[in-house]
């Protein structure tokens, strides 16, 4: 076996997976940072994003790009509405807020189950063939997904860094009370923060839909990965989530060379539990315990 090739291929795969974990985890950690709410419904928004993309492309015959944008916009509006109507009384109330999102997850998942049925749906691929670079082959469909994800993350970065709304969000993450004293309006920022967070999950779902199948149950696995990333990266820390997501993707990809998937999964859980105990504020980033 040519080790250089195997490692190179694993690195490419790991980065692709890591980027998608990142999309999930950034939204999750943003929601926690803004309203200190562990959103157990995050995975269901991933699922809804995948279904939105599926409906847009197969039923409405829209191009994939439009489907992703529509999925994100729909999730943003739905998320903001849910925050405003359901979650408002539980802002900053960590435990009850979390239990509320468990209820929300039950409603969203089983609502989708009633609407779409339990069977998985296939979505047409968005690109064919593969690109080979320095001996490493990556399917074009995955490359396209990586491109989309990178654009979305770059846009998020610019938004958070250089716009009024983004600055307001970051200020609330830093210190909600001081932000309020500076005239940042909570009634806008909270729904907006939640909406952006779940829209990122929906984008991840829409991007993954052509690679995997679409069913009401697909939200659980990415939610679990988002947990791991965010715990390792520090709850509420966006840079921490970025590093942890890529590290987790690479780690999974490398370990799959040597270990069976389930063994690798268990080792990751052990790593997360140990990491959480040893570094409660996150292994990598500066979380807020």
């Amino acid at each position, binding site marked *: 076996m040519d080790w250089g090739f195997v490692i190179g291929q694993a690195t490419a795969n790991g980065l692709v997976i890591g980027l998608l974990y990142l999309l999930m985890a950034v939204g999750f950690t943003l929601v926690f940072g803004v309203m200190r709410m562990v959103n157990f419904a995050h995975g269901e928004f991933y699922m809804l994003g995948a279904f939105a993309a599926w409906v847009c492309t197969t039923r409405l015959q829209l191009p994939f790009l439009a489907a992703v944008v529509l999925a994100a916009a729909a999730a943003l509006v739905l998320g903001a509405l849910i925050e405003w109507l359901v979650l408002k009384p539980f802002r900053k109330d960590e435990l*009850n807020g979390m*239990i509320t999102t468990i*209820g929300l997850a*039950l409603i969203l998942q089983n609502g989708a189950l*009633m609407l779409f049925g339990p069977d998985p749906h296939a979505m047409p691929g968005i690109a064919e063939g593969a690109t080979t670079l320095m001996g490493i082959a990556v399917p074009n469909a995955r490359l396209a997904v990586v491109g989309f994800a990178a654009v979305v993350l770059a846009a998020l970065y610019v938004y958070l860094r250089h716009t009024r709304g983004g600055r307001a969000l970051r200020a609330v993450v830093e210190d909600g009370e001081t932000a309020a004293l500076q005239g940042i309006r909570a009634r806008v920022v909270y729904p907006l923060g939640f909406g952006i967070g779940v829209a990122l999950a929906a984008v991840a779902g829409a991007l993954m839909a052509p690679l995997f199948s679409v069913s009401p149950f697909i939200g659980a696995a990415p939610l679990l990965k988002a947990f791991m990333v965010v*715990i390792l990266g520090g709850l509420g820390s966006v840079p921490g989530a970025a590093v942890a997501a890529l590290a987790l993707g690479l780690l999974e990809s490398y370990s799959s060379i040597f270990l069976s998937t389930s063994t690798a999964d268990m080792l990751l*859980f*052990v790593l997360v539990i140990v990491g959480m*105990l040893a570094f409660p504020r996150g292994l990598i980033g500066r979380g807020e315990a």
Partner: protein
Amino acid sequence: MTPGLSMPNTAPAARQPAHAAWQAAGFALLAALAVLPWFSGPFALHLAIQVCLNVLIVGGLALIDRAGQLSFGHSAPVAVGAYASVLLGQWLGLDSLSALLAALALAAVLALALGWVILRLRGVYFVLVTFAFAELVRLLLLDFAGVTGGASGIAGIAPMAVAGFAFDTRERFYALALAVALLSVLLLARVYDRPLGRAMAAVAANPALAESVGLSVLRVQLVAYVLGSTMAALGGVLTVRYIGFVSPESFATAASVAFITMLVIGGRGSLFGPLAGAIVLTPLPELFRGAVQTQHLFYGAALIVILRFLPGGIASVPARLRNLRGRA
């Protein structure tokens, strides 16, 4: 008493006669409910047994919650109890009672070791780590198929037997389950009423203040965690002895969600919360037969509505009604 330190179960010294009458009526109703299943056919008995086992398991969760930590992995100790009693029984050739005791001991030791480490985490961090641990337990059970039977589980488990008397019919097993459920409520009542229970409430209300008056937060929470996990393990042992089958599927996240749902809807922080939650929620799936979605949809909506408008759960309704009347 410090402000913010709530003692939900301290009844006023002089009870009003009307209150006592209502209470007596409530207990009479519960007693009637408890006896009824014996005369209502196998299906009602089956439901009643499940209610009893849930009272026990959710009671364990309530005890841990009482000390201020919410476990989102309460299916883990249930799984440990269930598998340990079956496997220890097989390996060591134990009868069902010795296997039960061995399983409880193992679960308690495991909870002690785990709790000593993870109880240092607070709030959502504890929730997340228990969630991750329960997933790990389920994966282990799936992966070590040579020992646990993997996804297909273990079938043909012998029923519970004590001194030659086998609890092998529904009627007999219900008697056992009812006794255990009653004992679990009594245990909670006794713990809550003692200094230990007060210490738990104090630790939950304000850990820093509790430490400053000399309570060891870790130790108090550890006692609650070990006791609560052992109760869950007993629930697991009894469940497999009743069903005669065990598989990792029974211990997925959905199980932990169901336990939390019962606790919250029944009433966190109140003695009768687990009882109310188990009685109301266990039979629900049967009402929505063939439509699991509808049932879960209802669970979700009920969770949100209860948290929003009745944070004390169903168990707080009588006290609320009393307050309303008192004000009028």
